[in-house]
């Protein structure tokens, strides 16, 4: 195909030619091109296939509103699915492919979808593909749906987030925005101006307008210098405002470098979170197409886009053009085409009496003007070759053309305004929605406010800038607004809305999701008349372009079909983001190791040196087991567990929560917070407690020490420390502020190491302990303070394993030294470091339940053998809920132990989560396994489970359903090992 690049002009850099590839063919372009303009210059007419029907599509627009040219940008780990060709800056050796087609956009096997078109209108999937089984169709639908493909490699680039505060944020650096920013900045206000493109000025950069006697481009340069001279002004280009949130918070996406290459410090994109005192929205307006049969053929383009390709990229989109319009603005495109040596065959104007001032100059140049006429069809395989026109006398004829430039009017870009909560009104004279009522401290100016002429936009922007500066305390002196002398007419659009052309054939409204007027009519017939229902039923406006070229046309069509006014029909909601955002930009630096902070034990280094295998438990990296050479994880676990039962184990229990609760009312407070009584605990003693929420559900358990009359050390489950400290604080601040209590979390300040086993006492003696640790002097569930291995420590006799245990707490920085010395001291007695795996096995065989593992969001004290808390006379959190009907049911899930029936040996464990069934039960499941392991001490499997009415069914045999098969188990009281607890009395 012959190229259509003009010999001169445009903002492209002709000294830097670039080559690129599209759908496997090589082409040439220039620096400054977008992929779209380069494709157009090379005469590539078909750039994609439509989503549903696989119709060939060409470029329609020049900017973010482009609905057809979604491509797959192929760049290794930077491969991007579905960027629009109009937004991709051309770079050397760029590789792109059209999406949703195979093998190429021009020749697509998927076009067969067009043959079954009548069976797949809007909403077809609500009515078909269900019998005999919808799952038969799912794989085909999955393959057919979707457009580009994401890469499966991690994003190699760096992304940043920045927070900024300013007095005035101006969004958009077109004429109105530049005027506003320049005006606001003069008094010294802190101004941020953000602009989506690389250049400032919008269309002024290439449009040949005149402002106050100088060219638009020169005016833009002057404004840029004004802004650069202000220390408190920041100008961000290639920065799109993508969202407007509460209280004037906006998100801006800055494209810093497209291809950081190997520069590790380069940032690819930067997400700005800006809080502004005043916001000025100068986001311009987007042209909307006309709706007529054949309007999606490659070669049909927006009139303003044709002009932008001419002026900005020096590309003429066709040789023989027809224009179809319902307003004055499109005539400028005709003039521009003629100036670029194109031929304008005719202007089809749906208005019966377009002004002679507009039509005269073009008629004089030999352009046929057809008033009161409409386009009713197009022809071409696949690119446009002819346009069918029906004139005011109903005469129809074909006009030869390879370009049909259409204009149906303009839509102010009010997306951010709507996101801010503002309300729109319908401007009947200009046939557009524009801002009417602001809800936040924000103003729209220029085309974004429906002010479509250049002089008015400049004035609008400047006034808003001055006002914003004043309101934020940085007043400026007013100056004479520049007079824009738009080379085109300054008057109104003179638009006469034409929502659809009445003629046979398929007319598309949403190009990206393939929604036609027939689909809208179908939705209306089926009573989906609310725009919100229409949108979801037809999927109009739900594609990546979010209806930028289709929403308003759809509202016009629906209004006509239902006999309502545009105001009555209304718009759907506009949501963040305005344009698609890469996940990397939203993640910023929060990825990899920085995604979620991981905590380490104070003694991490010694565990690591001992070869521990770490896993994450409640946000803390802890040793799961310490394998010897050649050991499997299971073997290590068994060895460590056996060591605890036979001699002595050393376990790092530092993440166990430690919260000091202090004050004259500390005891009374804990009585309200715990299900059991704490105020009667004596100084020097320890007591296990259960905490409930107001629903009576167990939220934590732990051992509390009484340090003095008004000082308690509350213990919590590892991982719950922060949550419980916050819980205590909440009740004190909100419900019982009169109680004199202070809560101080100490968990990370102290390390806790547990020596546990029949030889624990002798090991501790050998390590050196100033406390009398004989059984009579230091009974179970008490604590003492003293010096252990030359370190001041608090020692508590609290056991999670069922063996004699000494939990030794020291300042965290002493952990490493103490661990080493305890290991040395215990060596002659066979001491082993113990990981979490073995620890959990030991507590399982003792029947000690683990909150959140054996209990869930419904478990009450009575379900785990703690029904006696109901005997208390005083109130506590959750007390009232324990006597609700649901808590008094006799078939509640209750904690039980499970004994193997058929002698499970070796690895034949009961899987956690396995459901338990019984032959006589009416339920599908009688409960499930919550904890499970193999006890080397008892040489059998051990398990805990939650079983309906379990306590009444001791001795009953159930069947556990496991992937390996059915396993028979007998319900037992929980606590298989040493049920009388005599090993603790030693």
């Amino acid at each position, binding site marked *: 195909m012959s190229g259509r690049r003009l010999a001169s002009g445009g903002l492209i850099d002709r000294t830097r030619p670039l080559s690129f590839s599209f759908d496997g063919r090589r082409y040439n372009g220039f620096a400054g091109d977008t992929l779209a303009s380069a494709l157009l210059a090379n005469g590539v007419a078909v750039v994609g296939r439509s989503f549903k029907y696989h119709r060939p599509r060409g470029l329609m627009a020049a900017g973010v509103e482009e609905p057809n040219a979604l491509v797959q940008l192929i760049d290794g780990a930077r491969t991007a699915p579905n960027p629009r060709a109009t937004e991709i800056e051309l770079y050397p050796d760029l590789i792109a492919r059209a999406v949703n087609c195979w093998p190429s956009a021009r020749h697509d096997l998927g076009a067969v979808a067009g043959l079954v078109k009548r069976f797949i209108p809007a909403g077809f999937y609500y009515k078909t593909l269900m019998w005999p089984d919808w799952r038969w169709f799912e794989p085909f639908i999955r393959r057919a749906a979707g457009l580009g493909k994401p890469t499966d490699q991690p994003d190699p680039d760096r992304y940043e987030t920045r927070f900024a505060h300013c007095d005035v944020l101006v969004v958009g650096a077109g004429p109105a925005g530049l005027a506003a920013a320049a005006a606001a900045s003069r008094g010294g206000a802190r101004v941020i101006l953000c602009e989506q493109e690389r250049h400032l000025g919008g269309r002024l950069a290439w449009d040949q307008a005149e402002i106050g006697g100088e060219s638009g481009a020169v005016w833009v340069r002057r404004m840029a210098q004004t802004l650069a001279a202000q220390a408190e002004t920041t100008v961000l280009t290639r920065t799109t405002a993508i969202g407007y949130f509460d209280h004037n918070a906006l998100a801006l996406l800055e494209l810093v470098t497209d291809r950081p290459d190997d520069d590790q410090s380069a940032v690819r994109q930067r997400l700005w979170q800006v809080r502004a005192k005043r916001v000025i929205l100068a986001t311009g307006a987007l042209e909307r197409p006309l709706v007529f049969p054949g309007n999606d053929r490659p070669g049909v383009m927006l009139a303003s886009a044709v002009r932008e390709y001419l002026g900005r990229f020096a590309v003429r989109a066709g040789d023989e053009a027809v224009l179809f319009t319902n307003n004055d603005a499109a005539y400028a495109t005709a003039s521009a085409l003629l100036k670029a040596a194109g031929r304008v065959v005719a202007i089809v104007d749906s208005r019966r009496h377009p002004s002679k001032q507009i039509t005269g100059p073009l008629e004089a140049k030999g352009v046929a003007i057809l008033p009161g006429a409409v386009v009713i069809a197009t022809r071409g395989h696949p690119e446009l070759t002819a346009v069918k026109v029906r004139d005011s006398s109903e005469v129809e004829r074909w006009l030869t053309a390879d370009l049909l430039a259409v204009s149906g009017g303009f839509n102010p870009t009010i997306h951010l305004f709507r996101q801010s909560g503002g309300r729109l009104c319908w401007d009947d004279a200009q046939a557009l929605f524009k801002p009417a009522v602001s809800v936040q401290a924000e103003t729209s100016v220029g085309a974004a406010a429906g002010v479509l002429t250049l002089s008015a936009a400049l004035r609008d922007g400047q006034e808003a800038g001055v006002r914003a500066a004043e309101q934020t305390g940085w007043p400026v002196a007013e100056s004479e607004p520049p007079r824009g002398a738009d080379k085109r007419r300054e008057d109104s659009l003179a638009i006469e809305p034409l929502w659809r052309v009445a003629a046979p054939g398929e007319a598309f409204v949403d190009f990206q999701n393939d929604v036609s007027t027939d689909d809208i009519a179908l939705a209306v017939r089926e009573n989906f008349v609310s725009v919100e229902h229409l949108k979801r039923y037809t999927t109009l406006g739900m594609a990546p372009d979010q209806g930028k070229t289709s929403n308003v046309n759809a509202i016009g069509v629906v209004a006509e079909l239902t006999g309502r006014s545009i105001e009555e029909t209304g718009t759907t909601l506009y949501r963040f983001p305005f344009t698609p955002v890469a996940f990397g930009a939203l993640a910023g630096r929060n990825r990899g190791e920085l995604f979620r902070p991981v905590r380490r034990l104070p003694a991490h280094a010694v565990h690591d040196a001992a070869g521990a295998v770490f896993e994450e438990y409640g946000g803390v990296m802890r040793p799961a087991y310490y394998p010897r050479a050649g050991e499997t994880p299971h073997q290590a676990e068994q060895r460590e567990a056996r060591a605890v039962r036979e001699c002595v184990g050393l376990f790092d229990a530092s993440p166990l929560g430690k919260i000091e609760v202090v004050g004259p009312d500390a005891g009374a407070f804990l009585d309200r917070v715990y299900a059991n009584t704490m105020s009667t605990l004596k100084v020097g003693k320890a007591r296990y407690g259960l905490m409930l929420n107001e629903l009576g559900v167990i939220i934590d358990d732990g051992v509390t020490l009484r340090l003095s009359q008004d000082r308690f050390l509350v213990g919590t489950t590892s991982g719950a420390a922060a949550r419980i400290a916050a819980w205590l604080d909440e009740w004190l*601040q909100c419900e019982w502020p009169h109680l004199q209590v202070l809560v101080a979390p100490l968990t990370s300040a102290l390390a806790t190491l547990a020596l546990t086993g029949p030889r624990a006492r002798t090991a501790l003696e050998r390590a050196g302990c100033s406390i009398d640790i004989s059984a009579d002097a230091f009974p179970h569930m008490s604590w003492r303070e003293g010096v252990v291995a030359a370190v001041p420590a608090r020692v508590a006799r609290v056991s999670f394993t069922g063996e004699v245990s000494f939990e030794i707490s020291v300042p965290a920085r002493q952990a490493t030294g103490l661990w080493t010395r305890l290991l040395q001291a215990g060596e002659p007695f066979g001491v082993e470091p113990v990981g979490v795996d073995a620890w959990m096995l030991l507590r399982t065989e003792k029947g000690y339940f683990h909150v959140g593992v054996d209990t869930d969001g419904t478990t009450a004290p009575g379900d785990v053998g703690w029904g006696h808390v109901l005997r208390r006379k005083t109130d506590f959190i959750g007390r009232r*809920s324990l006597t609700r009907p649901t808590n008094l049911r006799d078939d509640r899930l209750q904690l039980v132990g499970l004994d193997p029936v058929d002698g499970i040996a070796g690895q034949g464990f009961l899987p956690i989560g396995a459901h338990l069934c019984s032959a006589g039960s009416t339920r599908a499941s009688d409960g499930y396994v919550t904890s499970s392991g193999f006890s080397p001490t008892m040489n059998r499997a051990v398990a805990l489970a939650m079983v309906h009415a379990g306590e009444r069914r001791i001795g009953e045999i159930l069947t556990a359903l496991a992937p390996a098969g059915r396993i028979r188990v007998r319900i037992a009281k929980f606590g298989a090992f040493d049920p009388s607890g005599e090993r603790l009395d030693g």
Partner: protein
Amino acid sequence: MLLIACPWCGPRDEIEFQHGGPSHLQRPEPFDAVSDEIWGEYLFFRDNPKGVQKERWLHAYGCRRWFNLARSTVTHEVLAAYRMGDPAPAGLLEPPATGGLA
């Protein structure tokens, strides 16, 4: 992103705070004289106003104090911030946004 004025620290970004449900809930007492209905209402039933809502917030990444906000659920405008335990300021009325399409 709400801008929340903590009564103790001043205006801070929403990201520093945690929402805590509605304010001024009365915990029914004494526990042995509360009916299932009243207790159930306290546990599960909440007002859902279109307009001014008084709600609890915690300055989680700041002073860690709980306080109350009076906020419009329609416009998200914050009408008042007051300390936990204080009564809501009198005469809180959200100014209606007049005109325009919904």
